């Protein structure tokens, strides 16, 4: 047995900046030095600006180095980085990983294992409190499992924040021999990557959460609807599902309990709208991803017309710890009606981008500056888009808003899936507003007129507004169009596109005026 463990993430974001090359070089250098090491490809710790983040485990403690490019590897060995705390000082060294403030200050419940375990190893999962939630669920009546989820205060983490317990209760109460559990892994919001990180870094927790949902509601079949843009997550999930079957955590007689749950991954094909739950169900059925009318609710008539629990990745992944530690444990975190933790994602022009799982209630400003460290470019942060492409652009004056569903709704914004995209003062907010309309036009499913046609008219009217003549008239027209989209659209795509458009117009009106635009570009 080798005594020395070195961790290099297998996460797509880490691989995208060279983690594979770094891992290869570490293996080669260790061989050259005749050092016996065990190279573990873990999930990402979420300190993405430090990727590839290499960790060395010495005496049960892990020491972080990052970013480590392949060409840095020999130097690290020369500095004795395999000695952990006894190593020579090195510019890439960050000390013990758990002591890095960015990580230390977080409250990781859903992401407890991500970056720590080997995502491909079910024994590692079990050794780190995995499947304890399922074990507890298997001893309970379905009503009691649902009651725990309700009592935890867990709300849908996909963006709509609907209480998960109510959904589950409806499905449990719905009659029918066949019910389904569907995971929405169509994480299309720009600025978000928490689903991807869970699926790549701890796929078993999602599988466990979905299995618990099946047992709680009487559903025996589950689907993970995964976007095609996440091939690494597909690999990780497929491998984890296979391992779970082999260890009898999926299939016909789960751990000898008699419970039955089958699970498979299905790929989307590049349609943002399929993140909307009814459109996702249509797509899973093999159809165009067009939005359905509600009612009927998917909980009563969902996939193939059968009662269906449909939740986001993070929602399901938060269930095991609730069942393991109890609803009050989870419920104790948070503020107001937003209970538990939310994995926030710091993205865009930010110095320290990454995943920050914290209880609800911290202010946006603290997140941006204390965690994020301000902009990457070093210029002032001018605008922040929270909640994906349908979220509002917030100016500096709103940075003190606490991260809480209701607080964001009060300023006509939304927390959504927890994505935060930072822009510095070089941003052109009229261009961002135009892009919001353009995106809606590209991704509209075409079912309702305000979204299908209104989005294209929106691009045109913003172009005319910015061009100058009759600007006042065009602004009236744009606001009127936004009202039609808000109240006349079938789903959130058309209904919320006015959020980024109007917030840009209201908070940054100078960017829409021809004369100031001319000055800015001069």
């Amino acid at each position, binding site marked *: 047995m080798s005594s020395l463990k070195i961790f290099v993430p297998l996460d*797509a*974001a880490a*691989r*995208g*900046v060279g983690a594979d090359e770094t891992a290869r070089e570490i293996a080669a250098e260790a061989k050259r030095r005749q050092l016996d090491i065990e190279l573990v490809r873990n999930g990402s710790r979420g300190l*993405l*600006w430090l*990727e590839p983040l290499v960790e060395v485990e010495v005496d049960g403690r892990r020491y972080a180095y990052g970013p480590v490019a392949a060409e840095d590897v020999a130097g690290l060995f020369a500095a004795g980085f395999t000695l952990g705390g006894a190593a020579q000082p090195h510019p890439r060294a960050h000390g013990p990983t758990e002591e890095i403030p960015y990580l230390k200050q977080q409250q990781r419940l859903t992401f407890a294992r991500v970056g720590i375990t080997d995502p491909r190893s079910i024994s590692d999962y079990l050794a780190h409190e995995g499947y304890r939630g399922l074990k507890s669920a298997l001893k309970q009546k379905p009503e009691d499992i649902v009651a725990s989820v309700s009592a935890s205060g867990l709300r849908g983490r996909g963006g709509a924040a609907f209480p998960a317990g109510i959904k589950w209760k409806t499905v449990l109460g719905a009659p029918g021999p066949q019910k389904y559990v569907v995971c929405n892994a169509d*994480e*299309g*919001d*720009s*600025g*978000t*990557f928490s*689903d*991807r990180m869970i699926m790549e870094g701890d796929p078993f927790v999602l599988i466990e959460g979905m299995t618990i949902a099946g047992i709680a509601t009487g559903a025996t079949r589950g689907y993970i609807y995964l976007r*095609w*843009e*996440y*091939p*690494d997550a597909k690999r990780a999930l497929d491998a984890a599902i296979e391992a779970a079957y082999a260890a009898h955590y999926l299939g016909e007689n789960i751990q000898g309990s008699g419970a039955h749950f089958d699970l498979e991954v*299905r*790929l*989307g*094909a*590049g*349609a*943002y709208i399929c993140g909307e739950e009814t459109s996702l169900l249509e*797509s*899973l*059925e*093999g*159809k*165009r*991803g067009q939005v359905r009318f509600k009612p009927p609710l998917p909980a009563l008539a969902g996939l*193939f017309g059968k009662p269906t629990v449909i939740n986001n990745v993070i929602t399901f992944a938060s269930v095991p710890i609730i069942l393991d530690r109890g609803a009050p444990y989870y419920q104790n975190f948070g503020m107001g009606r937003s209970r538990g933790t939310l994995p926030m*994602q*710091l*993205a*865009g*022009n*930010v110095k320290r*981008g*990454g995943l920050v799982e914290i209880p609800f209630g911290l202010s946006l400003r603290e997140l941006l500056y204390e965690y994020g460290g301000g902009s*990457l470019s070093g210029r002032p942060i001018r605008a922040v*888009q929270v909640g994906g*492409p349908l979220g509002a652009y917030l100016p500096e004056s709103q940075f003190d808003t606490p991260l809480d569903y209701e607080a964001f709704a009060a300023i006509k914004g939304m927390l959504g899936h927890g*994505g935060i*995209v*930072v*822009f*510095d003062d070089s*941003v052109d907010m009229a261009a*961002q507003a135009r*892009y919001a309309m353009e*995106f809606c036009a*590209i*991704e509209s*499913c075409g079912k309702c007129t305000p979204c299908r046609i209104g989005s294209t008219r929106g691009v045109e009217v913003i172009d005319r507004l910015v061009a100058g003549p009759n600007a006042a008239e065009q602004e009236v027209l744009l606001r009127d169009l936004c009202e039609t989209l808000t109240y006349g659209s079938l789903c959130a795509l058309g209904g919320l596109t006015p959020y980024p458009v109007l917030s840009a117009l209201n908070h940054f009106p100078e960017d829409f005026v021809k004369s100031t635009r001319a000055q800015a570009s001069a």
Partner: protein
Amino acid sequence: MTSPVPRRVIPIKVEPPSSLRAEERTAVLDACARLKELPGALLPILHAVQGAVGFVPKDAVPLIARQLNLSIAEVHGVLSFYHYFRQHRGGRHVVHLCRAEACQALGAAALEAHAKDSLGIDFHGTTADGAVSLEPVYCLGNCALGPSLMIDTELHGRVSAQRFDALVAKTREQA
């Protein structure tokens, strides 16, 4: 007594006419045979066809429709709805360039201009040597390390103009 109406035989074409190459036809039929019993089989089949052929040829549509007992319009409707499915042959490799907000905040628009300029093509186009197609994509989930792109299934972050050129050059060397 009236004489019986003479029976007319209406010839039914067993299979719609098609200009598919033999290997393409085999790929389509294989995908259908393997996957058509799945509930909601159409998307998995289209993925399998595109995976094997590189795109979904026009003449694959009636063949798939027939195998799944769907109308041609239904299959075409699904195929044309999803941005990922290609209806025309592309390059040997596809560069999926992210256009979404988080990458915009880090200069995605400039990278897009550089990409189009250096490849000499617009979005959905293919370079003259047939090596590379350029497609827009709306978020690759790499929003803290943008601008991002994916070449075939490999993600790349912090892509500068120089890095773009290097990645494309490396891609061109591959078969």
